[in-house]
């Protein structure tokens, strides 16, 4: 399936709203996979993700007459999916609610005002794009999957699905400042996992 960007999704929603017969199957094809991948990462269970995909699409179509602006289809669909995920909450995955502190990601500073010594891996040695599709992709997914729920949701929506800050805030029912704060901490956590992975490759 060819990837569909935000413009393509809005166009698809527009065609669906106009009742174009072929738009239905295309819409299902595009969004079913996206919802499944998002909810699999959020719920942690394949069966839950399968159910969330179907329940979300059903709700999307049942309430389709409410969608007035095709440009908002992404945020609208993900918001419904997010609520469906919350209904599947399993304590092992979602609890306890955990906050990440900025300080825990700050590299240790030198003593007595000495220059900060940063011990980070050699990022220029990152595997090429072909390898990325394998091992590195796994590391990223695992790192995102290990984030506390509130950070995982922001990271998936902003950096993987590439929703805007405003759209992400709309999906999560919060404001843009909260999205920005959580996104930065989530990125720092994933960066640290990647850094550890690069070190382990070197050794």
């Amino acid at each position, binding site marked *: 399936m060819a*990837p569909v960007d935000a413009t393509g999704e809005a166009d698809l929603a527009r065609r*669906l*709203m106009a*009742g174009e017969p072929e738009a*239905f199957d295309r819409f*299902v094809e595009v969004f*079913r*996979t*996206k919802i*499944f*991948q998002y909810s*699999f*990462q959020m719920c942690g269970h*394949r069966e839950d*993700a*399968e159910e969330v*995909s*179907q329940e979300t*699409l*059903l709700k999307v*179509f*049942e309430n*389709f*007459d*409410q*969608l*007035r*602006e095709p440009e*908002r289809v992404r945020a*609208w669909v993900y918001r419904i999916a997010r609520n469906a995920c919350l209904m599947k909450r399993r304590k092992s995955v979602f609890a306890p609610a955990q906050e990440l502190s*900025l300080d825990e990601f*700050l*590299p240790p*500073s030198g003593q007595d005002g000495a220059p*900060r*010594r*940063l011990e*980070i*891996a050699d*990022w220029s040695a*990152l595997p090429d794009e072909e390898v*990325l599709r394998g091992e590195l*992709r796994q590391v*990223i*997914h695992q790192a*995102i999957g290990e984030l506390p729920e509130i950070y995982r949701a922001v*990271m998936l929506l902003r*950096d*993987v*699905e*590439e929703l805007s800050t405003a759209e992400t805030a709309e999906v999560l029912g919060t404001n843009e400042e909260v999205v*920005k*704060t959580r996104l*930065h901490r989530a*990125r*720092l956590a*994933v*960066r640290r996992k*990647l*850094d550890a992975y690069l070190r382990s490759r070197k050794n």
Partner: protein
Amino acid sequence: MATEHGAHPGNCEEVFALLSEYLEAALPAGTCQEIEAHLADCPPCIEFLNSLKRTIELCHGCESEERPRPLSGEAREGLLAAYRQALAARREGGGKRGQ
């Protein structure tokens, strides 16, 4: 540690808190200039910034390769029925409720 827009990042900790917004060009011009003034004189922060930038680039387009099971005919029919009903409602009354 300053984290608000309009902050005056002068040291590593303050810059560190603003790096994501800096990368997205979401900060006021003055704050960006102050970050750049710091970076010009702080190689470790540049190194960290580059690794964070690479992290974000790697996450883009890094959707899971997991796929849902093929849609059953029955499930598709359920969705199609809901869609047709909503479409009819939209045509009749221009939608029941606002978005």
